[in-house]
């Protein structure tokens, strides 16, 4: 399930030992793997076919780069093309200046509309808006009650009329919102199948009467091939302004995101990352593409970490990760940092490889667990920390006694560390891909570039860098720039469009 694309490609392409350039013959099997990986990620069959034609066009004839394995080069092409297809992230919501802004949510049954209404209300409140929730689902039992509970949790008023019809409820809500001085109306509509003509007509009726400023389609990330059918139908009926993908907190590869985006052209604006109301995030194409390819999400880790970790330490760890050097000392620090982040499990799950690992910190007493792990590491000698594999039975007993735990706990910690180390190695390879970009000119200049983002971490809102931190960042960037230039000069070859480099 989690065998990542790169590994699969290396077997498929390795057989052909391509030299010099990629040709149709030597990448055929490799591209087949790409195709299968995308299909397994639930990208729509037709979208995959079209996409593969694009990728193959890009890949065939590409010069091989000595310092990089061909499969890495292909992964890079695939990655860039996918990110490109996903389009620029656009999380804007246009507010009406003359009166309340009406946002309407729609989608299939159980996709997460009601929960997302709550999440949106919370997010808008944080940016100073005054949301107003409208219970327009009169179909599902206790749907009104559900929204009321959510409204209570957020202290946001909820408008409802039990014995009415959805169109009237939505119409009535506008006047009431005005009366209460609320500026953003969020309509929670009932889930419906796109083939249910009556209910689709009802939605159009709401749209006609209420004229929502923003219509959002809530799409379940677990959706398979059918995603394009439903999204297309809703888009046809309502002219969607955006899509919200929910349930991306699990291990779904989320291919539906790509399909929906490709087929409707409607941008994905937000993603739902959990059941709680604070689990709504801006859509990040890199993150979703990484998930789709099973490559883990280093950008996501770094971003989440930044909210809690101090910048200096984060930078130091990033450098180490990239070099694939990460010892128990770092492990100790990083779990210490993680403690600050609320739920460690959540962070861990963002990594395909790690999600599988038995690093179950989620429901546990995270504080206690972190303290325990740190205690174990603290009982080790520097040599043991640098290379935990030298820990034999007698060392294990000593460490356990020192930390007041069982010897088995020591082995399990080493195992956890190994699991992490493997992932960090993988990450190191990922940033490698970025170096390829510099050499081949394959990437789209700047904008979508996981590596670049890594090198210059985006700082979470509200947190400012000290001059020292800024300086450090700048140096790191310059170093990378210099390296790129050096590599380009060394190669001095035309770019992928056949034009000589400027």
């Amino acid at each position: 399930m989690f065998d990542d694309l790169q590994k699969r490609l290396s077997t498929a392409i390795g057989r052909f030992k391509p030299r010099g350039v990629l040709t149709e013959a030597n990448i055929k099997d490799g591209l087949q793997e790409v195709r299968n990986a995308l299909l397994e990620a639930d990208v729509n069959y037709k979208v995959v076919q079209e996409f593969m034609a694009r990728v193959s066009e890009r890949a065939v004839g590409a010069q091989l780069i000595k310092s990089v394995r061909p499969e890495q080069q292909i992964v890079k092409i695939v990655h860039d093309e996918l990110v490109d297809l996903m389009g620029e992230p656009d999380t804007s919501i246009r507010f009406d200046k003359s009166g309340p802004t009406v946002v309407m949510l729609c989608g299939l049954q159980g996709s997460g509309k009601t929960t997302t209404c709550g999440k949106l209300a919370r997010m808008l409140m944080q940016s100073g808006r005054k949301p107003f929730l409208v219970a327009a689902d009169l179909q599902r039992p206790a749907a009104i009650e559900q929204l009321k509970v959510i409204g209570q949790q957020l202290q946001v008023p909820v408008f409802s009329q039990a014995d009415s019809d959805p169109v009237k409820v939505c119409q009535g809500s506008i006047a009431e919102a005005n009366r209460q001085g609320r500026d953003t109306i969020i309509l929670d509509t009932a889930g419906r199948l796109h083939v249910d003509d009556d209910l689709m007509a009802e939605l159009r009726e709401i749209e006609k009467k209420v004229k929502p400023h923003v219509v959002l389609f809530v799409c379940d990330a677990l959706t398979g091939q059918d995603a394009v059918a439903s999204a297309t139908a809703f888009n046809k009926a309502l002219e969607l302004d955006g899509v919200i993908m929910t349930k991306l907190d699990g291990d779904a590869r989320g291919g539906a995101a790509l399909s929906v985006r490709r087929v409707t052209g409607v941008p994905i604006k937000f993603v739902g990352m959990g059941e709680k109301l604070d689990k709504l995030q801006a859509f990040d194409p890199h993150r979703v593409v990484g998930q789709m390819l099973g490559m883990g999400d280093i950008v996501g880790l770094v971003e989440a970490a930044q909210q809690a970790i101090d910048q200096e330490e984060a930078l130091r760890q990033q450098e180490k990760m990239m070099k694939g050097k990460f010892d128990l000392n770092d492990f100790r620090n990083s779990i210490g940092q993680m403690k600050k982040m609320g739920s460690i499990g959540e962070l861990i799950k963002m990594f395909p490889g790690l999600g599988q690992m038995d690093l179950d910190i989620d429901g546990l007493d995270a504080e206690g667990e972190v303290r325990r792990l740190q205690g174990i590491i603290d009982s080790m000698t520097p040599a043991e920390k640098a290379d935990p594999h030298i820990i034999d039975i007698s060392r294990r007993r000593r460490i356990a006694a020192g930390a007041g735990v069982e010897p088995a706990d020591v082995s399990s910690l080493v195992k956890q560390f190994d699991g992490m180390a493997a992932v960090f190695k993988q990450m190191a390879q990922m940033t490698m891909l970025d170096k390829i970009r510099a050499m081949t000119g394959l990437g789209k200049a700047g904008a979508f570039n996981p590596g670049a983002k890594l090198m210059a971490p985006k700082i979470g809102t509200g947190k400012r860098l000290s001059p020292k931190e800024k300086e450090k960042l700048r140096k790191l960037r310059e170093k990378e720039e210099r390296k790129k230039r050096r590599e380009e000069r060394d190669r001095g070859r035309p770019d992928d469009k056949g034009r000589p480099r400027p």
Partner: protein
Amino acid sequence: MAFKDILERFKKGLAKTAQLFNVRSWFGRKVDQAFLDDLEGKLIQADVGVKATQRIIARVREEFSGKEADDDLIAFVKLELKALLTDAQPGTLATAPRKPTVILVAGVNGSGKTTSIAKLAQRLKDEGNSILLGACDTFRAAAADQLAIWAQRSGSDIVRGNPGADPASVAYDACDRALARGVDVLIVDTAGRLHTQSHLMRELEKIRAILQRKIAGAPHEVLLVLDATNGQNAIRQAEVFTQSIACTGIVLTKLDGTAKGGVVVAVRQVLNLPVKFVGVGEGLDDLQPFDADAFVESLFM
């Protein structure tokens, strides 16, 4: 018969014709790579998945390569699929030798657990059983209210806890009530959870353990509710839920849309987990015993 029903039937009839036409249009074609690619496309678009599809394709290639596609080929593919999917007793559930029979229901968020429980309650009620529902979803807003409304509509009894209460304690109380009242069937609703949330999976195991401890042989059925619109992730769902609470069957919901639910073919290749029922709407009567024949037909539509 209401006009809407007549229309429904008409539509279904039309769909059948379309499908016959579709399948027939393959006849006379040579079974070559292009043909197999088409067949593959059909199955993948029905969410059968790459691996499961490739297995089927390999069998067809073996038997029919170079021949002409005809009735035999279609029959062969269907037979392969049906053999995989057929359940000895579709639509029947295990019953306890001594009351109550306990059915535990689980699945990911929004898959249709609560609604399926309501439908199942109605069905078992119609067969003459008395029903108690255990509202062990204490997490989602108004989840117990939702189940309570269904309980009322289907004439079932319900045990519920306070929002945020320990679901295992609600299961405990439900068992007590079921034993005290001598009800025939206890159906336990649980909160939706993604199988990657290991602490929530442990919570589910705890619920199961309580049922087991309180009532001999319980749970007699553990039903996994899968959403037919789901893609390949359903395989992981089935694997992890089964590992955790030993599922005995699947309820495949939302088959009234355009999604085919073909992923259950892949699920069946890795697990011996039969589809027991399918959900075909939001009403109490919209639950049908799984019909492997009809299901397989629809995969090719």
